């Protein structure tokens, strides 16, 4: 009974959004505001780029931190972006980005979001790079593998589920970003969260709900995908 209650409570906000978005008129809404498609495309492009780069850097830099004798100090450096609120960081970063010509464009938004996503990815891989992985590397080297072979044939294959999971998580870090995008994008990069806020400002509830559904659907898919990957990883290990 308690489980059913909790399940219903979790479903309610999603159902509320779907109902308020008037599903029967989605096609008409979509046609009426082409900006929605543009925002969805920009959001997807930015989040994919951020997730790809953050995962690659997190995988390698995470390994550097995990095996380093000053692991504690380096890990604190990885936590630095967590310390600063994205909006507060955006306030400080904006001038710097204007000076180097990165404000008001997708590149600047990606660079600013990477700042947070990379720190997250490094922390994410701390549990993965352990003594077992080092032993595998050592074994491969003892058997005559070259560095490229160790990376390509040992480390990458065993990292695949974690790489995908990290990609999903960093995708969400970027997908949910609002304040930083608003500041660094200078209002010119209209991602989906900004579009939802525009609709809210116009008291356009149905469009805001539709935009919210578009924001939530990929996020839920990514979270479920991550859960499935984790479950598969656990099954493979056992």
């Amino acid at each position, binding site marked *: 009974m308690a489980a059913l209650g909790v399940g219903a409570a*979790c479903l309610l906000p999603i159902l509320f959004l779907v109902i308020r978005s008037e599903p029967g008129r989605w096609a008409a809404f979509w046609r009426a505001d082409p900006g929605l498609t543009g925002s969805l495309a920009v959001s997807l492009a930015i989040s994919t780029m951020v997730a790809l780069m953050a995962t690659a850097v997190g995988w390698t830099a995470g390994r550097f931190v*995990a095996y380093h004798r000053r*692991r504690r100090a380096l890990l604190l450096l990885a936590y630095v972006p967590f*310390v600063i609120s994205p909006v*507060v960081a955006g306030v400080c970063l904006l001038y710097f980005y204007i000076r180097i010509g990165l404000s008001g464009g997708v590149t600047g938004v990606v660079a600013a979001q990477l*700042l947070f996503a990379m720190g997250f990815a490094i922390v994410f891989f701390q549990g993965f790079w352990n003594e077992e992985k080092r032993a595998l590397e050592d074994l491969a080297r003892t058997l005559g593998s070259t560095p490229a072979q160790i990376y390509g044939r040992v480390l990458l294959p065993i990292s695949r589920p974690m790489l995908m999971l990290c990609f999903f998580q960093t995708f969400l870090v970027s997908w949910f970003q*609002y304040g930083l995008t608003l500041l660094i994008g200078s209002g010119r990069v209209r991602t989906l*969260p900004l579009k939802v806020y525009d609709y809210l400002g116009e008291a356009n509830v149905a469009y*805001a709900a539709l935009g919210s559904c578009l924001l939530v659907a990929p996020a839920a898919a990514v979270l479920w995908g991550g859960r499935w990957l984790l479950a598969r990883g656990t099954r493979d290990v056992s």
Partner: protein
Amino acid sequence: MSWRDRPALAGFALYLAVALLPLAASLVYGGLYSLGIAGLLAPGATLAYWSRTLSSPELWSALAYSVYIAAAVVGLAVALALTLALLLRDRLGAGWLSGVLLLPMALPGAVAGFVIFQTLTAAGVVGRWVAAAGLPALTNDRPGLGIILAHLLTAVPFFTLLFAQVADSERLTEFTALARTLGAGRVQRLRRVALPLMLRGASSSIWLVFVVVMGSYEIPLLLGRQTPEMISVLALRKYAMYDLTQKPEAFVVAILYTLVTAGLVTLVMAPGDRKGGRAA
């Protein structure tokens, strides 16, 4: 350095170059701006902006309000999630419930704020009943109930799943069974075994959520009020003002907030990593 560390070193160097360096540079610039050395209308080195901001009740009320909201969210979320995790532990493994619990976590701050706003505002589904009952408004209210509820929407499922995972990894079932064998009662098992194990296992995440809520922006922007306001909202409001003399004060707020949270995270993370580094 051995060959195998080179790609890893390159990755970390990239993190330093892309993330930490710009962040450090921008904080230094913010510091210089707040001291009147850099920026628009820079009058030359002065502590006037710092003393004006530090003596303004606006800053301290924003800081206190942010701490209050973060403490309320974390306190309530942890209490609710612990209850749920202990009640539903058997169902939180790979079952449907853990899948459904992921759904609210897919709500970005803006959307969580929107849902709460639409539900609790005076014209909302629940807000109408609240208004009809003569109760105070739940959005844009002084105690920040709307802000707290919007954060709880995502924080409770997150902590529930986290506690369930911690219970598994810390072998809570075995330890409570052992405590029962040794004669511990129900309350003792909860107070002396279950709660310490789960809270200790999740302590870093609890503090990180505290810091994230403290610095949140979208939710208080939509559901909060101007006085008191949360620290991120105050910083951005001062920064975006037409009055350019307010900009240095925005940087003072940003730097103070960063110092507070940096101190907090250092305190929390440093003792948690007692194992230190492994031999390279």
